[in-house]
Structures are given as C-alpha cells and as structure tokens.
C-alpha cells in the first residue's frame, strides 16, 4: 500500500462529488501509484494510459460548453454511499486478502457511484473513466498483463465513445467557433 494509492482512492471520491475537474489529478496520482508498485514495463505503460485517460477528456471538453443537465437534490448522498462502499470493501479486503488495501477496487466503486447517481452525460463519462483507472491500478498492482490490456482497451473505448457523444450532445464554445471561422477565412 502506498500513499499515492490511498490518495487516488480519495480523489476518486472527488470525481463523485465534483465531476470531471478531479479527473486529471486522479490520473496523475494513479500514474504515480502505479509507478510505485508493480514491475517496470507494466507500471510504465499503466502510468501512460492512466495519464491519457485523465487528461484527454479535459482537452476534448475544453471545446464545448459545460453540461447543463440538472442534477438531483441529494448531491451529498453519492459521496456518503461511495465512502460506505469503500469502507465495506476495505474491511472485506483486509479479511480475505491478508491486509492488502484494495485501492483499485475502491476507485472502481467510486466511479460506479458516479455513473449510477449522476444524470449528466459528462459526469457519467468521468465516472466510467474513474472505473477504468481503478481497473488499471488493480491490474498493475496484481501484475496481471491480460487484465491490464483489457482494461486499457476498455478505457480507450470509453474515452472515444464519450468524446463522440459529447461532440453530438454539447454545444460548442464561442471561442472554438471563432477559431474555426478564422481558419476557414485563411
């Protein structure tokens, strides 16, 4: 268990509470956690994919206006639910796996709560990417190459599908439209 792994689990809670803004930081901390645990070739590729999954959505969304889907009144409830799930998983994990902190699983649980409890497409996209980050961390910590490959593929699929959906659903920012017009004029 490293400090970065614990921090990553806490940052995943931030994604549940605040959405896409926490995703780049989560990606960064996740990458550090991977580099700190596991064997070199897998950790390096894992860190690369985690960084990509953390940073790319922000870059895509910078071209579009914010998602205006109204959320429910119980905004604080998902965080508590995620926290409770994490504590339960921590207890179950410590009993079954001899004291190992299942950080990846906690991140997956937080992402799941974000997908299930939020209505906005962008928030759900952030939740799915958080899930993928958790799977990657878990696979790297366990040293499972196949699961890591499938998780990376899944993360990339979610990234592309989310970007396609955001392109179709969200209106463009005025600045991006202006830039496009200028390029057309040139």
């Amino acid at each position, binding site marked *: 268990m490293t400090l970065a792994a614990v921090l990553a689990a806490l940052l995943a809670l931030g994604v549940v509470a605040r959405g896409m803004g926490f995703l780049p930081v989560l990606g960064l901390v996740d990458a550090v956690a991977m580099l700190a645990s596991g064997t070199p070739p897998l950790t390096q590729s894992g860190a690369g994919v985690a960084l990509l999954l953390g940073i790319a959505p922000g870059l895509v969304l910078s071209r579009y206006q914010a998602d205006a889907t109204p959320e429910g009144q119980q905004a604080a409830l998902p965080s508590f639910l995620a926290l409770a799930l994490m504590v339960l*998983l921590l207890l*179950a*994990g410590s009993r*079954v*796996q001899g004291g190992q902190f*299942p950080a*990846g*699983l906690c991140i*997956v649980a937080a*992402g*799941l709560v974000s*997908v299930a409890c939020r209505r906005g*497409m962008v928030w*759900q996209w952030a939740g*799915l990417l958080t*899930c*993928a980050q*958790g*799977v990657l961390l*878990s*696979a790297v*910590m*366990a040293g*499972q190459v*196949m*699961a890591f*490959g*499938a*998780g990376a*593929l*899944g993360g990339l*699929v*979610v990234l*592309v*599908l*989310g970007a*396609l*959906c955001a392109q*179709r*659903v969200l209106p463009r920012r005025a600045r991006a439209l202006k830039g496009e017009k200028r390029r057309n004029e040139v």
Partner: protein
Amino acid sequence: MRFEDFTVLLAALAFVWPFLGAVGVCLAPTERSRDVALWMAGLGCALAVAVFVFLATGGVSAGWEDDPVQRAGRVMLALGLWVTVLEHGIFRERLLRSVPHVSTALAGLGCVASEAAIGLGILFLALAWGVFVFMRPAGQALAGWQIGRTGAVGLLLALAGLTLPAHGLTTGLVLACGLVIMTGLTPFCAPAREGQGALLLVPFSGAALLLAMRLRAYGGVGFDMALVAAGLVSVWTTACLPATARTAEDRARVFRVFPVALALMAVGVGADVAALLLLCGWCVAGGSRVGQGWAARALACFPPGAPFVGCLLMLSVLVDWSWELALLAVAGVLLGIARAWPDASARTVFGTGEQTMGFRDLWPEDRAGRLAFVTLAGMGFLVPLAMMLGAF
C-alpha cells in the same frame, strides 16, 4: 487433408464466418442485403452445428478444443442471429446491417478466448462497434450512450473482479455484479431499449452467460451465491412488479429477462445444461420479439420449449443445493407464470369465460416466429437427449 486438420479448419471458419457475413451485408446492394444476411446467418448456424458435432481433436487442435456446453452455446448464438435477421426487414443503413453479425462473431470469439480477461476485452470491441453505429443517426447519441454506459460498467466490474485473487469473497461478488450488469438483469439495470439495441444486446448477454460458466472456477463460493441471489431477486421482481403492466405487450416486456435470471441461477448452482437451454430461450425468443404472444410464453417458461425444460433442470439441481432457495424459486416461477398467462385463456382454464385461446396464439404467423418456435421445441427435446447420451 487429415480429419483433424479439417475439424480445426471448420472451427476457425465458424469464428470467421460471421465477420464475412458482416462484410457481405455491408457490400451487398440494399434490396439484396436481407437475402445475403439470411444465407450467411444460415450457413453460420450450419457451421456452428458442424463444430459441435465434429470436435477438433489431435495435436494441431491445441487451443481449439473446448467445453461441449460452450460449443453448444455458440450454436445458440448463431441461431439467435438467424432468427434476428429473419424477423427484421431491410436495414437502409449499411453499418447497422453489420451490427448483429459483428456482435455475434465477437461474442463467440470472446467466449473461446484462452483467458477470460481477453474475452472481456473482445466484448468491449463488440460494445464499441454497436454503440458507435447506434449513435450515428441524428438524436440517437444519448440513447447509444445509455447502452454503452451499462455495458461498460458491467465489463469494467468483471475485469476488476478478475484482478483480485481467485476464490475470494470480494472477487466472487465483484465478478458476479459485473456479469449481472452485462446481462442487463431488470432490477439491477435500467430496462434496455427495444428495437435496434437488441441487435447488440442479445449476443452480448449470451456471451456474458457463457463467460459466467467459465468464471465459476475463478469466482468461488461468493460468485455462486451472488449469481443465485441476483437471479432469485430478478425472478421475484418480475413476478411481483406493481400492476403497471396492464396490456399484454407490457406484460410481455416484463418477462424479457426472465430466462436470463433463471440461467444465472443455473450457472450459480452448476447446472450448465439448464443454463444452455435457458440461453437458447433468450437468444431465440428474446430481443425484440417480446411483444409477440408465443415469445412471451416461451420466455415465461411455458411448455413446450427449451426454457421450460431448462427451468425444470435448474430447479432439480437447486433442490440439492438448498431446498429453501428451491422453494422460493418455484414460488417465484409459478407466480411469474400466473402473471404471464393470457387473460382469455385464464378465463377458459378456470372455466368461467367463453373466450378460447386461438391457434394463432400458439403457432406464430411469421417465418421468424415459426423458426424460433420449432427451434425452441427441438432444443427442449434434443439437449436433454444429448445430455442422456453423454454429449455434455
């Protein structure tokens, strides 16, 4: 060519064939695309049956030989593709035509992959292709996103379970949760949209069931318990849903995932043949056929048919597992059957009405329905016979 080489070639061709079908239907002119799809799907069925009968053996077949139940499961997936193609008209959009073929091909490949994680990765590809195609028409982006979101959550959860140590309680629970969400079981997932979504979801859920059979050895006791519990909750939810389903069509829609719930219970108790029969019911009568009377009755385990036989087999194994759970399951299934019983025939059965169930309610009018009905009745007879002869 030796016979062993021929069987390996046959197995390889059976995996490649649906991809060829997808290319064929994309390239064919729109008017002829349905005929091409029918021929390709029909030949794919014949190939799947041939692979089941002629098992790849010998030195060159390393990696191709697998469990007979898995091979029979791929026959069910191929049959489901044939019925799907037969019941739909001509799709104007080229890529949409390829979705059932591609998803069936990738589902078959995912089930035969040497490691379950690779299989889940392949299913990610199937999901990506299906959702990409569904998202393309105007105004369909969010509907496609909903399908992709549910599938991706299930796949990621199952992958997370695979990264945990084998036979752990957490491992089993997480794996089972992932597979349950992949199958789209009713109370745990939002009800899936009908229509085009079924082109992807029918083989996707089928592949999840076949993968669940393989993952039982990895998941341990927690996996079995979670699958049985999820199936039981789904059966009871279907049976006791509030009386919002007034019309016959609504009632039929409620029973959409009934065989999947029973199949998950069968996987949990280790009754693979029962799960296979229920998978046959899901592939052939599920999907967008739920609005039709015969399909609703088949899904609700009415005799004759594969789901009925599968349900009996599953209950017989469940009794050995735990008689309390078996009692609960029998009560849930009976309650479900009572709800699925058509109003007119119910009056007749209880002797208080004049209306009778017409021949049309039993024997479907369209070609796809007739093929599905004959398949269900045939499989309900053939699979137990094969089990008695020692094929499984």
